[in-house]
């Protein structure tokens, strides 16, 4: 969980033959999840909140495709509704962390000097911290659930992301077009945001997708510990937390959300790797 994107960077010699099929499937999976998040209410066969205590935790049947949980709620509908928290939080985390990281990385990489060394000390410090442990403890003590978790993850993700943007900026800085822009007397701000930024953005975009997958897994993890979304919210991580006790009576109630977490995260990682290869060469 704490293994950050630096290590998720695609390496040389990755076999490409299967990638295209994999990428197509990954896009289809993400499209389905997005569709469920947006139109879950119209496609779910049942309300995710209706309790049937007399039914209890029943295995899959014709009426309840994935069975029911302890309170008799339809697991299949809850999984469809769960697409919402699986997408929104990670999206906010990935975009939020990258907006901050891009600004910090641009300033630190281009200005150098004090700004750079201060930023890098902060990054080193953050990377030495056990981030997932901090997320659990801070979210648990401060309270506030899902959105506190999103905020904490943005802060924790910003540090490694800043380092990536900074090194991309350092690669651009010695190029002739920067010298040319400087010789023309263009302001620093303009050089940073009009000239360097567009050249750094492709890398940022690929990493936003990889960060998304990472944030999804982290948020699901916090919900699995009972610290993320509010009790009762249809959420894949929360379902694993609530349905832990019915592994013997209706295993699908655990296996389906678990499968969706992996499937979505794998798809996003594949798309991220693919974007990385396409956009950075």
């Amino acid at each position, binding site marked *: 969980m704490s293994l950050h994107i630096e290590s998720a960077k695609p390496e040389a*010699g990755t076999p490409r033959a299967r990638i295209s099929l994999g990428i197509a499937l990954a896009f289809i999976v993400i499209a389905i999840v997005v569709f469920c998040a947006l139109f879950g209410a119209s496609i779910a066969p049942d309300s995710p909140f209706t309790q049937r205590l007399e039914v209890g935790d029943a295995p899959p049947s014709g009426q309840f495709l994935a069975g029911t949980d302890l309170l008799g709620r339809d697991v299949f509908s809850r999984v469809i509704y769960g697409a919402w928290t699986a997408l929104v939080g990670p999206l906010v985390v990935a975009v939020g962390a990258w907006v901050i990281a891009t600004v910090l990385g641009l300033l630190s990489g281009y200005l150098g000097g004090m700004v750079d060394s201060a930023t890098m000390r902060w990054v080193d410090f953050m990377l030495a911290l056990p981030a997932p442990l901090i997320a659990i403890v801070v979210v648990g003590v401060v309270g506030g659930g899902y959105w506190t978790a999103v905020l904490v993850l943005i802060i924790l993700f910003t540090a490694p992301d800043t380092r990536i943007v900074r090194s991309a900026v350092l690669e651009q800085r010695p190029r002739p077009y920067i010298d040319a822009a400087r010789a023309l007397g263009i302001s620093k701000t303009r050089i940073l945001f009009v000239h360097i930024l567009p050249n750094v953005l492709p890398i940022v975009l690929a990493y936003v997708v990889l960060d998304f997958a990472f944030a999804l897994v982290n948020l699901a993890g916090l919900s699995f510990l009972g610290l993320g979304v509010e009790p009762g919210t249809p959420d894949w991580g929360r379902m694993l937390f609530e349905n832990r006790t019915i592994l013997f009576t209706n295993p699908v109630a655990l296996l389906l959300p*678990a499968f969706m*977490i992996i499937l979505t*995260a794998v798809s996003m*990682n594949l798309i991220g790797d693919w974007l990385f290869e396409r956009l950075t060469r």
Partner: protein
Amino acid sequence: MMRSGVLRLILVRLAVAVPLLLVISFGVFSLVHMAPGDPVRALLGTRPSDPETLAALRERYHLDDPLVVQYGKWLGQVLQGDLGRSINGNRLVLSSIKERAGVTIYLLLVSTAIVLAAGIALGMLAAFRRGGRLDRFVVMFGVFGISSPAFVTGIFLLYVFGVVLGWFPTFGAGRGFLDRFWHLTLPSLALALSIMAIVVKITRASMIEVMDRDYVAFARARGVSTTRITLSYILRNALIPVVTAGGIIVIGFLANAIYVEVTFALPGLGSLIVDSVQRRDIPLIQGTTLVLACFVVLVNLLVDVIYTLIDPRIRFSRVES
């Protein structure tokens, strides 16, 4: 000359680790104040709020002092091994931690062994068969491993080996050595799988890079045996990036251990911290967080030292400068 270089490096690392530990301890200390509402209320928990208990709490946590003084006094107590008492059950935090540490240490040792043995072996095999079927499988395994957190892997392992096949118990840590081994097999595997992907990925990538180096071609041309080339020319150099990634690997182990312990209902430090967080037992949270965070910093320090020892380039370059 060389020895003093290594010694200096260790001192430099220590000089970074000590402030880091201080900042972490300050963060842990401030948890009392981060909890919503009055610190005394947070420390009181569900106990009755009679004036005597409140006064005793204010006294124990020096809440009437300025913040910095509070921290100083608290740190002094911590350094003497006094982590206070838990809110629920009023037990010594230190003895709760001692009681739970065994399972976590066992879990970490077994899964580290699995990761180092199987992870490096798989990475090597994939690199040798680059582009082949095994390699493709390993690369796919890497993507899955990075995407599936330990609690999800754990649930699948529990279902397949615990429920369907019934080979392994589904909860608890067992008593005695053999029983414990049997109980901790699935958890160790779940933990190992979540970390292995990273080790396999790094090993594979750096093996491929090293295999193409001139000195390997030269050794081959000289007729050095394949085993010797693989072990002492390629592997030794290829493992350096794995050690460099030691920091994120250690943090990954710890984080995933927390999730694995909760998934398999194991009485370890990870489940202790989650229990205490769920019950908002601040002293217990503080003690456990402090111990785990110190563990991470110290293991990272150790990894840095090992890194310095196995890579002569670092040793010599620093000495020259």
